């Protein structure tokens, strides 16, 4: 016999994500989900962003890491709340572990939560963790073909950070082709170019965060 089901497979994850969204809205917290390859510069981006914003905003971080606490340790110097989620080999974070992590924070006194997802351009894009925005981080050394190869992330992201632009002359990165592939994938994407290591070009990104924070927590 055939049974008609028509049920969303990721319902369990989505329901939790929706609960998180509601909770963050009520607590007036902006949560962004930072997604990029291993080595794209996600943790360095967080370091520079926290350094610039920590005097004005109270910031908390959820660090997704397959096995180590290396990234979480790098952020300890800022004396902000950090929760580390070791996924034990899993390639992405899901909303259930995010909900547990958020319970560790004093959300009444938190402005922005940064989630550093597991280094991967595929799987994290598939799972809603209740964030307001997915942020795609890519570095010029990875090549200009990444949007075409990983369309879902660049389609779903609200902002994209192109990192390590100081190295562009040493690579074959084709900027016009990269820009065109982003335009046809996601015309509404906010784009920022920077070198996190040199702390150059972050202003646009920081302003985007500030504006987004005030717009989403009215």
């Amino acid at each position, binding site marked *: 016999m055939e*049974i008609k089901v028509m049920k969303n*497979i990721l319902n369990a994850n989505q329901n939790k994500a929706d609960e998180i969204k509601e909770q963050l809205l009520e607590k007036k917290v902006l949560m962004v989900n930072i997604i990029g390859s291993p080595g794209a510069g996600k943790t360095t981006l967080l370091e520079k962003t926290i350094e610039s914003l920590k005097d004005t905003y109270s910031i908390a971080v959820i660090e997704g890491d397959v096995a180590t606490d290396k990234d979480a340790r790098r952020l300890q110097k800022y004396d902000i709340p950090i929760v580390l989620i070791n996924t034990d080999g899993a390639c*992405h974070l899901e909303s259930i572990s995010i909900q547990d992590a958020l319970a560790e924070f004093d959300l009444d006194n938190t402005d922005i939560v940064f989630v550093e997802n597991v280094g991967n351009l595929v799987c994290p894009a598939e799972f809603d963790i209740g964030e307001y925005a997915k942020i795609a981080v890519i570095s010029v050394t990875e090549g200009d073909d990444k949007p075409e190869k990983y369309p879902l992330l660049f389609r779903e992201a609200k902002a994209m950070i192109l990192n390590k632009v100081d190295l562009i002359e040493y690579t074959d990165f084709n900027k016009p082709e990269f820009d065109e592939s982003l335009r046809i994938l996601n015309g509404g994407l906010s784009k920022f170019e920077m070198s996190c290591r040199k702390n150059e070009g972050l202003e646009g990104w920081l302003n985007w965060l500030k504006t987004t924070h005030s717009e989403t927590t009215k």
Partner: protein
Amino acid sequence: MHEFSIIENILTIVEEISGKEGLTSISKVSLLIGKMRQIVPDTMSFAFEAAAKGTIADSAVLEMEFVPIKIHCNACENEFVVHNHTYVCEQCGSTDLSVLEGQELIIKNIEGER
């Protein structure tokens, strides 16, 4: 490799429904998968075969039907299907679009015996 995580979710739902409907074995599970989803069919089949061992869906076939990406243009109200991940209106060139279909990840139906 998120396919494994997806398959786990599928098996949970399949077992839940089998319990409710009193099924003793499952012969087929049919899915609707939007083309925006980055699902590799071979990986899905492999993951299903591996994860279904010893469950009620042990000998079930996994059937996948892919749903094209259907778009509504918010500028000119045109509706079209996206090819090659080009999210630009074919009629007016706008990128202000809403996705109507193509994001599905749904169990459509299951077949089994009571």
